[in-house]
């Protein structure tokens, strides 16, 4: 019997096209994916991991397969619903339930069939991926060896368990509740669990919980592959170990329990036991008095009645009908249980997601409105999508589903009224959801004790920006339902549209004009509002609204209004209906769309440059081929910069004039100047006679020949004009140069000298695609050209800088230097700055309506520094922490390294379009997105276990940027490999010195743990091969920031802090403000080695010149009380040490190294901290502590590098 049910279901499914449709879609997506990553399309570059990972590496196939099993839950839902609900839908229920069928056979047979069908559908993924990799036209250097296990293993560990659990959920719920809609709610529920798990996962302390919580096992597999490097990913995917294993077991178990529950709960009965809160007895005795009268009564009654007069001539009031229908549809929607349930889920999600607002170093930000809005605009899209999907179908199909359409269709209600009422009702439903979102957002803010409610901003963001996108989605959904005219297929196509639109649309169509609903984004900032972004945004949206209206008009003509609905008939009807007013209005909207489209095209492609990424690549190739030969062309250096810059915040324009003094610092005469500009620069003039020999307007390169060549130490003055006009808009949106409030411009606005290799393509794979030779990621440490220039600007050493900046009367303009003069002229503010000390050719120009917090710092030597923080009014939360950071830095660095070179230091807030802080001479632009709104109210909260402590990153970031005033602005590194270590690792170490004084030991540990995790987690994304700190390349930021911080901290501990600091002090002394030749890591490491004792030479080499990892494991540990009430401890510790080469190969190294061991009592107080010399393999440690020990940790302070960034204690046993 069981087999018969199973067989019947399979046979039935395989006779229908749906299952093959799903299979084909899965196959095509998988196949297309491998083609895209394997380089089949010249214009598409996709990769999931670093360039050293093969596109078919087990680690990648793993990720791809689990993404499929999670995106494919729609298919599982469809398959299950079809199998389960068949009997309810086709009224075969009574036939089925009146057979002597056993419940267990019914349930098991059908579930087995559903499961097997889903597995069949998902088999397409593996087949598609595998066949994809075999395609001969792919770039086979990207494809590693193909092993069957690579494709089979993810099925066992991911796809099958996921299908099992998910189909158990769908199967059980739709069987018990007899409704398809519960499947949609389950989808949303599962998705929300996944998103919540992913949010939790970002928090290092919650990773285990997150790993268990994610029903798809994605978080868990990430957890067990956290520290995988590129070569690990090439070797194997996630092993079924640890949390990944537990996760799989947990969810398979839950799935089984659910099925068992279903078995007991399910009843073979016609009527579902009704779930009603209030029983309505009267409705049960329907037939007792159903208005029957005797026929005689009836005849009497009839003759007594007179029909009321009806004036049907007033039947032509479409508006009244429309309003009534809108009311009717809206009530139906808002009264729908599932609609309300989905809304409820959404609210729950908002509250859970709000817990992790803006997390950085486990520290959240205040729930300012834009942060809350980012939750509302994120994963919640899925909820709204499901609402649109479900209820557009429900509305279009309601009459037919209820079999009332034959009556409705004979009523004189016009098509457009029917359509418009449904559309409006669904739009009102969305409005309702959005209002609930806003309300939830406000409650989230109130709960976080944040009371600056910006309702206007909520409304503007939700209804002024996002709402239109939901309307556009609704048009598509309705249109698909109308055109496809099959509820079930309609859903499939809408989902397909959504998947393509969310993931592939821009790869396929590139231009906003071609991607339905497309347009440039807008970003909100507290400082700048929506800036200049709204106008272009709405121009694009208007274009799409016209197209949507045209689609609706066509859709309306296709609306089925008769009982016949085959295509021939519908096309015939369409032909009949497309006339008169319809065709006129269609023509009008299409004409408007075409004009808007042309206007947009004129702006994006003619006035401005529209570049697909592929075209961008081709240009970079051409640039390189054309000008690479001039890379070594000797150029003079810029020694003086004078600027006059006018900022116009109202219009976004920037006008400027400038002069450079160029000096020949080589020992050769120079006869050609190569000016690297941009399209806003013009009117170059020189104080020496020159001849323009070539001007390239595409790449903005100009070559000038000096009539008389520039002799060594000779100077020439060049002046230029900059005209930056906010003119129209481009594909990316507004083209303003400065912002309405919070302008932040770089020196790159103005010309530079010589060929810049920054514009070259750097990706190994992309260069290979275009036939370019491999490019070294950095110049060699011994490269003479590299040593002659610093890493920040190749065309200058230290310059004199002077600038007059004007801005609107309500703004303050800032740039490096001392403020010499400030005045007002014709409703504009003018500021004249001049640097008091030579500085790097690296400056920024900022302007905004700031408030300013001021202070002063005095050095013991009597130097006074004016300190100011220019900030947005309302962002006062952490100014004290930042100011403290500035002062602590000045104290620490001037004592450790050298005096501060300027008389002022300014921190200036800028809009959150970027979220970093950056150090310019005496000025630190600091994004409003980090630091200013960090929520540090619980910073000093006591009784918090150290894992949960928050980190004052405004302070940390400030001290880091402050350190750059020394490590960059005093000592600039050469433009060669390793220079980032001199700049960033030393800066991190400096910041740690400030933190140590200010943070407790636990917070330091937490910070170091974060650094360790970031480093090991990023290794798989390395594109060019990992490098040691000494040779680190500019793109390897986690090496020079995170590993750098750990390594320098360890060196400070192993060599002694004073030793290291004095090495650094000497380094500053020798290289500060020296100009070329610039120092490299050779120079610093040489000094460190000189200062280090012989016993520590190995450590310096391991830390700085090699990539070294350890694996530690406390095998067992015992303690014994001695007669004198001290305790004797015997610990057995396993140590592995290995080196990693550039390719990621790990080679065992013999260890005889100092490793710290710490012993704690039961209250986590350290009883002993000592470095032991530990060998590879098992070590026996024996020592005595004074009090009763409880646990032991190897390397608690992160001095050695391990892949496991947790340092859990091992409990001691009494021996």
């Amino acid at each position, binding site marked *: 019997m069981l087999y018969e049910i199973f067989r019947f279901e399979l046979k039935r499914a395989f006779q229908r096209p749906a299952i093959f449709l799903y299979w084909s879609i899965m196959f095509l997506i998988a196949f297309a994916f491998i083609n895209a990553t394997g380089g089949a399309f010249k214009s598409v570059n996709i990769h999931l991991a670093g360039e050293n990972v093969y596109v078919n590496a087990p680690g990648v196939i793993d990720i791809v397969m689990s993404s499929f099993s999670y995106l494919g839950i729609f298919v599982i839902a469809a398959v299950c619903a079809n199998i389960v609900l068949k009997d309810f839908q086709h009224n075969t229920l009574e036939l089925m339930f009146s057979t002597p069928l056993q419940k267990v056979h019914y349930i098991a047979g059908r579930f087995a069939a559903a499961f097997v069908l889903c597995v069949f559908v998902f088999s397409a993924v593996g087949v598609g991926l595998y066949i994809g990799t075999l395609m001969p036209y792919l770039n086979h250097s990207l494809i590693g060896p193909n092993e069957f296990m690579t494709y089979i293993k993810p099925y066992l560990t991911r796809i099958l368990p996921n299908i099992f659990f998910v189909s158990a959920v769908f199967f059980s719920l739709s069987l018990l509740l007899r409704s398809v809609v519960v499947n949609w709610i389950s989808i949303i529920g599962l998705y929300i669990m996944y998103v919540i798990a992913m949010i939790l996962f970002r928090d290092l302390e919650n990773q285990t919980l997150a790993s268990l919580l994610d029903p798809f096992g994605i978080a868990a597999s990430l957890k067990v592959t956290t520290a995988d490097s590129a070569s690990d990913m090439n070797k194997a995917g996630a092993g079924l170990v640890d949390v990944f294993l537990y996760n799989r077991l947990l969810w398979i178990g839950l799935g089984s329990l659910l099925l068992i529950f279903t078995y007991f709960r399910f009843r073979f009965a016609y009527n579902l036991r009704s779930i009603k809160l209030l029983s309505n007895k009267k409705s049960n005795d329907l037939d007792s008095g*159903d208005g029957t009268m005797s026929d005689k009564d009836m005849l009497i009654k009839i003759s007594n009645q007179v029909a009321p007069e009806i004036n049907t001539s007033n039947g032509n009031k479409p508006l009244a009908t429309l309003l009534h229908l809108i009311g009717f549809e809206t009530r139906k929607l808002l009264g729908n249980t599932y609609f309300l349930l989905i809304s409820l889920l959404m609210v729950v999600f908002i509250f859970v997601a709000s817990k992790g607002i803006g997390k950085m170093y486990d520290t959240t930000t205040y729930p300012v409105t834009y942060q809350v809005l980012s939750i509302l605009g994120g994963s919640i899209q899925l909820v709204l999508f499901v609402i649109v999907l479900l209820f557009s179908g429900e509305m279009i199909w309601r009459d037919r589903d209820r*079999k009332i359409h034959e009556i409705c269709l004979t009523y004189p209600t016009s098509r457009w009224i029917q359509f418009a009422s449904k559309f409006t009702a669904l739009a009102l439903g969305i409005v309702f959801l959005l209002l609930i979102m806003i309300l939830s957002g406000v409650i989230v803010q109130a709960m976080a004790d944040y009371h600056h409610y910006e309702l206007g901003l909520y409304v503007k963001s939700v209804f002024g920006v996002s709402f239109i996108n939901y309307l556009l989605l609704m048009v598509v959904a309705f249109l698909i339902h109308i055109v496809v005219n099959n509820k079930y297929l309609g859903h499939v196509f809408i989902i397909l549209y959504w998947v393509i639109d969310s993931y592939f649309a821009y790869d396929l169509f590139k231009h906003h004009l071609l991607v339905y609903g497309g347009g440039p984004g807008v970003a909100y900032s507290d400082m700048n509002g929506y800036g200049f972004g709204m106008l272009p945004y709405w121009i694009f949206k208007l274009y799409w609204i016209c197209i949507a209206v045209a689609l609706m008009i066509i859709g309306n003509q296709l609306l089925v209004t008769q009982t016949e609905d085959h295509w021939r008939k519908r096309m015939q009807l369409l032909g009949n209906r497309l006339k008169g007013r319809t065709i006129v209005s269609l023509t009008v909207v299409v004409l408007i769309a075409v004009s808007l489209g042309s206007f947009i095209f004129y702006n994006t492609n003619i006035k401005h440059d529209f570049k697909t990424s592929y075209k961008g690549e081709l240009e970079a190739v051409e640039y390189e081929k054309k000008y690479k030969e001039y890379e070594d062309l000797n150029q003079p250096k810029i020694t003086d910069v004078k600027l006059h810059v006018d900022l116009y915040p109202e219009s976004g324009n920037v006008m400027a004039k400038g002069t450079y003094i160029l000096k020949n610092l080589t020992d050769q005469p120079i006869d050609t100047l190569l000016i690297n500009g941009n399209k806003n620069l013009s009117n170059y003039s020189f104080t020496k006679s020159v001849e323009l020999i070539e001007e390239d307007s595409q790449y903005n390169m100009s070559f000038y020949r000096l009539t008389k060549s520039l002799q060594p130490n000779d100077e020439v003055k060049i002046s230029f004009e900059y005209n930056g006009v906010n003119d129209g808009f481009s594909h990316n949106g507004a083209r303003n140069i400065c912002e309405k409030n919070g302008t932040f411009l770089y020196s790159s606005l103005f010309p530079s000298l010589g060929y810049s290799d920054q514009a070259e393509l750097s990706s190994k794979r992309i260069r290979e695609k275009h036939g370019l030779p491999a490019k070294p990621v950095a110049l060699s440490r011994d490269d003479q050209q590299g040593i002659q220039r610093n890493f920040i600007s190749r065309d200058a050493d230290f310059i004199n800088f002077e600038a007059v900046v004007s801005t609107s009367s309500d703004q303050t303009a800032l740039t490096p230097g001392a403020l010499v003069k400030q005045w007002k002229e014709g409703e504009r503010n003018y500021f004249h700055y001049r640097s008091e000390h030579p500085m790097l050719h690296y400056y920024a120009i900022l302007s905004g309506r700031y408030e300013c917090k001021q202070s002063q710092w005095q050095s013991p030597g009597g130097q006074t520094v004016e300190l100011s923080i220019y900030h947005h009014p309302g962002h006062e939360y952490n100014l004290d922490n930042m100011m403290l950071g500035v002062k602590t830095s000045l104290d620490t660095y001037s004592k450790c390294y050298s005096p501060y070179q300027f008389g002022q230091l300014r921190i200036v807030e800028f809009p959150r379009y970027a979220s970093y802080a950056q150090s310019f001479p005496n000025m630190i632009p600091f994004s409003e997105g980090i630091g200013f709104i960090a929520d540090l109210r619980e910073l000093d909260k006591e009784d918090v276990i150290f894992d949960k402590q928050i980190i004052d990153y405004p302070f940390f970031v400030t001290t880091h940027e402050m350190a750059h005033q020394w490590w960059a602005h005093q000592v600039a590194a050469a433009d060669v490999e390793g220079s980032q270590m001199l700049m960033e690792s030393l800066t991190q170490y400096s910041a740690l010195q400030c933190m140590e004084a200010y943070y407790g030991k636990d917070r330091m540990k937490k910070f170091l743990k974060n650094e360790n995790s970031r480093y090991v987690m990023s290794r798989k994304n390395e594109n060019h091969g990992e490098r040691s700190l000494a040779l680190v390349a500019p793109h390897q930021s986690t090496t020079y920031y995170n590993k750098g911080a750990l390594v320098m901290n360890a060196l400070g501990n192993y060599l002694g802090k004073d030793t290291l600091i004095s090495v650094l002090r000497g380094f500053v002394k020798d290289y500060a403000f020296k100009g070329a030749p610039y120092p490299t890591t050779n120079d610093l490491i040489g000094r460190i080695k000189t200062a280090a004792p012989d016993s520590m030479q190995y450590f310096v080499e391991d830390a700085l010149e090699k990539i070294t990892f350890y694996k530690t494991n406390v095998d067992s540990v015992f303690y014994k009380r001695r007669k004198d009430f001290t305790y004797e401890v015997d610990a057995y510790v396993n140590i592995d040490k290995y080196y990693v080469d550039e390719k990621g190969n790990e080679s065992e190294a013999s260890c005889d190294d100092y490793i710290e061991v710490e012993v704690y009592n039961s209250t986590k107080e350290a009883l002993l901290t000592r470095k032991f010399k530990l060998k590879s393999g098992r070590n026996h440690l024996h020592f005595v502590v004074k009090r009763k020990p409880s646990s032991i940790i190897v390397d608690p302070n992160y001095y050695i590098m391990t892949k496991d960034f947790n340092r859990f204690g091992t409990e001691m046993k009494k021996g």
Partner: protein
Amino acid sequence: MRLQIKNITKKYPNGVLALNRFSLNIGSGMFGLLGPNGAGKSTLLRTIATLQDPDEGTITFDDTDVLACKDEIKKSLGYLPQDFGVYPKISAKELLNHFAVLKGIHNRNERKDMVDFLLKQVNLYEKRKKSVHTFSGGMKQRFGIALALLGDPKLIIVDEPTAGLDPAERNRFNNLLSEISEQKVVILSTHIVDDVKDLCNDMAIINQGELLVNGRPTDLIKELNGRIWEKRISKQELPAYHDNYQVINAHLNEGKPLIHILQDEHPESGFEQVAPNLEDVYFSAIR
């Protein structure tokens, strides 16, 4: 008031010729449309009700071209399909009110009067606050006729309304129909011959898309006067009678076939002349 159907042809995409050059004139009063399953009744009714278009032919109602001016005709049209459902969880009154708006009755008071009147007329006023999807079959059909009567239509089409109703409900429903048929064209499609006999002053019998008979039921019965003969036979004899006579009807009576044949003169012994009824008309037509 006159509904004129001329030369209607309808062929479905699957090749079924549902109506073949079909013409019919229908005047005011109750018009019965008889025919076996698949005769083309529903196709004809749906075509008149604007729910589908014929391939050829014209239909006019008074002076209105039904096929061209659908919106115009819909205002004076009431249609009760063979099988219909309702929205769940909506009371009868509310649903009727909803449809009244769709029908174009915008004056609130008029609408209320109309709804109340119709609910009373179909005898559901007591049940007006009940949800329609909980109604019994007869109540639902009565509610359906209320839907069809909304807006005082001049052309009412009811497609097999009494199928599945118990005798009492059927009676009740027929009373309702006869009451509304004054000053209106009411087309009643059915395969229950008695309904037509009881209610209709005019009728047609169609089969395989063609009009077989059209006229007043009494006239049609009169035509068969003296030509219908009845005999009780055994089951084994049935094929032989079929071969020798024009057997128009053979139904079981007390377990034995009772046959009616159509013949002008007296057939062999054992046959008795009987007064013809409408059933004889029907069966003689569709043979």
